[in-house]
């Protein structure tokens, strides 16, 4: 379980990116974080694993306050948090397998990682994960030889290799086409359900968020302005988050969604 308590971030420039954010994400919950550009979504999830240092507040993962840790202890705690990135952030010149195994870096000594001599259990687990995300045959391909959707699957496998207690997902579909986006979102939600894994997902695509998230938090100018189930995300709620716009027209325009749905169902049946 993750609890944020009064989390604030003010950048050196004086810009306040987050002010007094308090949230609790229970085990197994997939929480979508929506809001306009610059609302602080990215800052929020980076404050949790401290890729960005919060200025005030607590980040409690279980009963450890991540905001107060020293360097070495922070590294150990980061292993508990898997992160998935917008543009995959794979190490492009390494193979798929090396990328997945890099999720184990926090667990192995330097010489093992340098010589690529990972423990047998780690390797077995990496293969298991690659199989789970459907990339078993790509293990020895270089990451930059894969398509966008495949790369994001590697990103997911890398995060899961950490054996995390929490997933931070930063715009996982921003660089993907609508169909691949839905496949990736489905994979993510399935995996979270399988492992009872909580996740915070930054997402700018509102229909996608409503379709896949169990709970939605809306940020505007660094403050939580909405917190509820996807059904409660009415036109009025969207206006408080984003400002005035014709929301119904936007939703209607999402026709390809149904098509992608059907396609994805067919794919799942083919696997089963």
């Amino acid at each position, binding site marked *: 379980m993750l609890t944020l308590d009064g989390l604030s971030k003010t950048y050196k420039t004086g810009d306040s990116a987050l002010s007094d954010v308090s949230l609790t994400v229970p085990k197994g919950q997939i929480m979508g974080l929506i809001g306009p550009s610059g609302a602080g979504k990215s800052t929020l999830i980076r404050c949790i*694993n401290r*890729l960005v240092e919060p200025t005030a507040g607590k980040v409690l993962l279980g009963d450890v306050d991540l905001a107060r840790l020293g360097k070495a202890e922070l*590294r*150990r*705690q*980061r*292993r508990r*948090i898997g*992160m998935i*990135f917008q*543009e995959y*952030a*794979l*190490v*492009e*010149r*390494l193979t798929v397998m*090396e990328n997945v195994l*890099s*999720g*184990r*870096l*926090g*667990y192995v000594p*330097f010489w093992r*990682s*340098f010589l690529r001599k990972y423990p047998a259990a780690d390797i077995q687990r990496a293969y298991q994960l690659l199989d789970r995300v459907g990339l078993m045959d790509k293990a020895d391909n270089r990451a930059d030889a894969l398509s966008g959707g495949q790369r994001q699957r590697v*990103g997911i496998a*890398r995060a899961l290799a*950490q054996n995390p207690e929490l997933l*931070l997902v930063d715009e996982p579909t921003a660089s993907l086409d609508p169909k691949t986006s839905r496949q990736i979102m489905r994979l993510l939600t399935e995996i979270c359900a399988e492992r009872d894994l909580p996740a915070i997902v930054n997402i700018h695509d509102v229909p996608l968020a409503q379709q896949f998230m169990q709970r939605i938090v809306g940020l505007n100018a660094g403050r939580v302005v909405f917190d509820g189930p996807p059904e409660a995300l009415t036109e009025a709620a969207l206006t408080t988050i984003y400002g005035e716009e014709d929301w119904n027209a936007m939703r209607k325009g999402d026709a390809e969604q149904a098509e992608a749905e059907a396609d994805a169902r067919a794919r799942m049946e083919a696997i089963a």
Partner: protein
Amino acid sequence: MTEIAHYSEVWRHRTPRKRLFMWMGWLALVALFVWCWQLMTENTMWYFVLDAPRQAADIGGRMVPPRWSYLPELMQPLWDTINIATLGTIGGVIMAVPVAFMAARNTTPSQTILRPMALFIIVTSRSINSLIWALLLVAIIGPGLLAGIVAIALRSIGFVGKLLYEAIEETDARQIEAIEATGASGAQVLSYGIVPQIMPAFWGISVFRWDINIRESTILGLVGAGGIGLKLQASLNTLAWSQVTVILLLILATVVLSEWVSARMRQAII
């Protein structure tokens, strides 16, 4: 849209102030050229210049035909030259790598002390020509191959260090961030996040420097640092022009070959 009755037909790329500065810049350049020309002609002995074509023809005449029988004698010094370049490059690269990591803003352990130190090493190495390094080293460790190798290595630190630290600074921060997020240690972030990204640059720079070093090491013999330059100096001193031709052609062939090898290797890497 705003209500504008009349849109201007005039648009200029530069402001009048900028145009004035540009004109003044060009004027200064022309003035400098005229001044330099005067300085140059003032100190020229025209008698020698007028004599130049005849002298050139004379030396040219002595240079041909090349004395090909001299070639076997050059093979050992040529091999020395290639060794100076290769070993010097390897030594230089080994020393340049830590300097580059200290000089790059995103990897330096200390912005205030180590980074300026590393930059100073790079500048020092770059500002002193190999020939001058060799002169110093011949005086310090005596004439021979070792002085040549060390001279090439010291000169290479700056070149390789500078290009490599720029490559390190241009790495994709997201890939590094992703490795940090796994809980990796500093050394692991370096070896997984940064090293794979700079590998192509590293090999490209090293091979390129080796190619330059082949050319530089051919003249090191002039100051006694071994290699084919020694033979060149000996032939020049004895006015054996037909031997000079053979040496120059051999150097040309070696440089062409090394450039070809370096181009092929860089192609293979990228």
